[in-house]
């Protein structure tokens, strides 16, 4: 349904995507994960045709994208952006109706089909209740649902989502991905399941809702497969430049990955390891950490006395690259004596929440 072969994109002389191949079938939700700057957004834009890749083939619904007009592409794939600039006062219905753009000719009026598609999309996304409100008055979660309704109104067999949950609270993250899941599993007006590829920042959310994951780093596919396999793949730790612990979420049973700071979860520093493991498996405390982390200040940690600890942390893991080093430097004070226990676990909360 969504397919790419050997996709290569260079922006400003820099290779952003390099030999990316993937395929997503109808009825399948595939998560695209990877560190910042991995090329996830670029890949989404290349697949929805708003960016011309320099190399490779793209396919949507059995047709080569290169041979399709913009309108034809937009009838095959809809894109849910991370956020929309909704600072003008369109009503929710008008915003959703924009999804019908690829079906309406210049002077053409929207017809009954369009109206039906818009209504059905609004109902499925749960925005029909405030169809006449201005989009400027909506909360972040409501806006995201409006954008999703717009994509549904496009009535495409394929769906691309670019970090749809990045700016949402945990409740709306789950609700949004549930909507995607439902669209993928059918049950829509047309009854057919969509093929969906979603760039998702949060590894645990991705693992929980997706059928498969694709790990993208430095513009290449580094790992691919079912969520547990990808999260357990050494390539993941390498891609993010951080060591991770893989557990199982006790509440929902999905894989749960926790980024470890240096010294945490590390056999050589047993005390911290115990705390880290305990924290990593405690789901409800995870949520609590998310609530609390707002007022916590990073700056306090790296003041002054981190130097000594940093050294033994450094050889703990084999990460030679920049990101790894930066992370280690940041948490220099972590293993420190007096407030050490508290500080260490708080930070663990914060990391896993991200």
């Amino acid at each position, binding site marked *: 349904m969504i397919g790419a072969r050997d996709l290569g994109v260079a922006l400003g002389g820099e290779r952003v995507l390099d030999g990316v191949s993937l395929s997503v079938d109808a009825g399948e939700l595939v998560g695209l994960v990877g560190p910042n700057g991995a090329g996830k957004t670029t890949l989404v834009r290349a697949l929805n045709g708003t960016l011309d890749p320099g190399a490779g083939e793209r396919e949507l619904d059995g047709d080569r994208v290169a041979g399709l007009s913009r309108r034809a592409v937009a009838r095959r794939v809809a894109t849910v*952006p991370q956020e929309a600039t909704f600072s003008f006062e369109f009503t929710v219905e008008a915003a959703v109706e924009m999804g019908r753009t690829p079906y309406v000719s210049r002077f053409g009026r929207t017809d009954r089909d369009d109206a039906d598609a818009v209504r059905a999309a609004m109902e499925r996304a749960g925005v029909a209740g405030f169809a006449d409100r201005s989009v400027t008055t909506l909360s972040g979660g409501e806006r995201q649902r409006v954008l999703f309704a717009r994509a549904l109104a496009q009535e495409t067999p394929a769906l691309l989502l670019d970090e749809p949950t990045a700016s949402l609270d945990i409740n709306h993250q789950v609700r949004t991905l549930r909507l995607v899941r439902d669209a993928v599993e059918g049950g829509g007006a047309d009854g057919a399941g969509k093929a969906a590829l979603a760039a998702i920042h949060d590894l645990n959310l991705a693992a929980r809702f997706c059928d498969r994951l694709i790990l993208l780093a430095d513009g290449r596919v580094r790992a691919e497969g079912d969520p547990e396999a990808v999260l357990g793949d050494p390539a993941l730790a390498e891609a993010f430049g951080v060591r991770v612990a893989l557990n199982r979420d006790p509440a929902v049973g999905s894989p749960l990955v926790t980024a470890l700071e240096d010294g945490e979860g590390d056999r050589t520093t047993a005390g911290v390891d115990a705390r880290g493991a305990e924290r990593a498996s405690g789901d409800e405390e995870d949520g609590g950490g998310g609530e609390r982390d707002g007022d916590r200040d990073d700056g306090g940690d790296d003041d002054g006395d981190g130097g000594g600890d940093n050294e033994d942390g450094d050889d703990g893991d084999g990460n030679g690259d920049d990101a790894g080093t930066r992370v280690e430097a940041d948490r220099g004070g972590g293993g420190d004596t007096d407030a050490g226990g508290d500080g260490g676990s708080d930070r663990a909360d914060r990391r896993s929440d991200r």
Partner: protein
Amino acid sequence: MRVWRRAGWYSAALAAVLAAVVTVSAGIGPVSIPARTVLSVLANAVAVPVGVDAGTADAARAGVTSLAGGVSVRYVHPFAFPVSDVERTIVMRVRLPRILLGALVGTALAAAGTVMQGFFRNPMADPSIVGVSSGAAVGAVFAIVSPLALPFGLGLQGAAFAGALAAGFGVYLIATRDGRTPVATLLLAGVAVQTLLGAAVSFLLLRSGESMRRIVYWLMGHLDGASWGDVTGLALVVPVLVVVLFAYARDLNVLLLGESDAGALGVNVARSKRGLLAVSSVLTAAAVAVSGVIGFVGLVVPHALRLVVGPDHRILLPTSALAGGSFLVAADTLARSGAAEVPVGIVTAAAGAPFFLYLLRTREVYEL
């Protein structure tokens, strides 16, 4: 559906307002003429073509217009209300050309301004944002001060029109790189070119000697001296181009979401941008060439209408265009009915700027 119905009703209402403003304006002046008489004059002027004579028709006969090649068209005037010749002359020869020119220029500027504000997603955008008006000014001033006859038989208006298009196209070329024209670059290039052309106008002004007065008058924007020729010229161009812009109304709505969203919704962003920019620039150039730089119509009218009808360009564009016509006719009526006539550009700025400030204070200035 609902959108089109709303667009239709609002447009019909504003068309009625425009007709009323035109009628009232035609009665106002040194000689006051009742609206009833104005309507009689207008009705009498209605001519229905009834036949075509080939060969040597008597061209001097009343109700016959000769075309090229000895072909002439016969007209019948269905109405013959009793009106005096003086009133007929005042309305038809003196006031109506100016009023209709005002309506067309106002329509063009407001439509172009609406498009530019949407296109640039910037509430401060106006029709001359890509340097079109500055280009027209240079062309016009050059035509006035140049001791040489202009090439290709360009008159003042031709020179202004050519200057406007050259400036607009120049800005577009400067801002385009690798086939992409980022809106922000276009905006900045427009500002830079406007500044440069402003310097050129100032320089020419210094050297203009006794034609300075004429130049300043042109630059301020004016509708006096309007001829039926000007009206016919604009009447052929403006409605067509406004309709073309209207065809892009949905694209313009979607472009408000940002270019990458618009692309994902099936809009050919590069092509739509080129089309919108070209058409609104030609529209502005045509208006500015005959009337000089009349400010604030293209800035304020779209804002005011957006408050009333909302941001949907399928409604906003036609209503803005009609309201722009009414606004400029009203402003020009004010400009010519004072003790001493002032350029209409002064009136629109004097009325428009406070209104804009009022909007600024009472409304959150939403980024479009």
